[in-house]
């Protein structure tokens, strides 16, 4: 019975930690658990799903890119709209110089958004995924800082731009503070995304479980869809969290770029 399988799976998962909904890999695992390939899929399901998202986005981009024309078709129009909006967003914060960061930041936004919307098994509900993205941002930000200030300028920036005697005396205090600040950025980026998306997924899972157990006395393969309002909430938070991740990354870049025009 499908619902009983679902309920059993949810109960099993609940004992391991955060409950999660079954996906097609889970069903494959239940049916053909002894096959090595299925075991591999089950063990690395987060990686598989994030690769699926990446491949989907690459194929979409390639197909649209191949058929581009002066008179844009439907798909080209949609993709151009997205790219233009992202470019405006990044350039609005970093200025026209910031256009070279649009590919990275835009990719981050689209990738995270698609992974959040993957629904039952968001790869972003796993700390490894979000931490990997945040570490990419961290290294790119440091590289940008070194490139725009030079090595000496970067070290000076980390020491809090000492100018007179008092600020030079404060350097031993400033350096650890700046280092901790830089290291806290990827931590907070990744934990925020992970916590929000995991919270959403757990909420949806709990309400699916409630809906299944509410009708379990009928022994029918249906439940009450209690989770529908929370799916809409998940759409909202998924968008906002992808936006926030991109926005904060953009802010971190802007802190590492020299700005005179203010």
């Amino acid at each position, binding site marked *: 019975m499908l619902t009983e399988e679902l309920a059993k799976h949810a109960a099993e998962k609940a*004992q*391991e*930690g*955060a409950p999660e909904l079954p996906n097609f890999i889970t069903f494959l695992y239940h049916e053909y658990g002894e096959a090595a390939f299925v075991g591999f899929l089950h063990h690395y399901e987060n990686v598989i799903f994030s690769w699926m998202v990446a491949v989907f986005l690459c194929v979409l981009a390639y197909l649209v890119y191949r058929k581009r024309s002066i008179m844009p078709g439907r798909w080209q129009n949609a993709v151009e709209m997205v790219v233009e909006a992202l470019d405006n967003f990044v350039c609005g*914060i970093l200025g026209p110089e910031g256009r070279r960061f649009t590919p990275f930041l835009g990719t981050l936004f689209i990738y995270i958004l698609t992974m959040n919307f993957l629904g039952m098994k968001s790869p972003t509900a796993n700390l490894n995924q979000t931490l990997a993205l945040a570490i990419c941002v961290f290294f790119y930000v440091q590289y940008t800082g070194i490139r725009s200030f030079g090595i000496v300028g970067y070290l000076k920036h980390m020491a809090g731009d000492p100018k007179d005697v008092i600020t030079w005396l404060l350097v031993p205090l400033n350096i650890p503070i700046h280092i901790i600040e830089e290291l806290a950025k990827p931590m*907070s980026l990744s*934990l*925020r995304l*992970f*916590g*929000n998306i*995991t*919270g959403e997924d757990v909420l949806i899972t709990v309400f699916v479980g409630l809906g299944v157990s509410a009708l379990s006395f009928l022994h029918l393969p249906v439940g009450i869809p209690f989770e529908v309002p929370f799916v809409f909430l998940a759409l909202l938070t998924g968008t*906002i969290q992808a*936006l*926030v991740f991109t*926005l*904060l990354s953009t*802010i971190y870049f802007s802190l590492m770029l020299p700005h005179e025009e203010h």
Partner: protein
Amino acid sequence: MSYQTALAIFLPLGLAIAAMGSAFGLGRAVSAAMEAMGRQPEAAAKIQLGMIIGCALIEALTIYALVTVFILQGKIS
């Protein structure tokens, strides 16, 4: 009191306290942003941007408490 009982009581309680704190913070931030937007509707986009950054930073504190709950959840049963 076993440590499982202590966790089962205080994990949700700690999360609730953290959520209450950031709810106050969010309330102040959003109300100030709304006032500013009402006073200067032409600057609404910039104010909204700043508000979203601030809200994300405030909300992160609750999320840290939630992450603690996720980490320690397995130890309760």
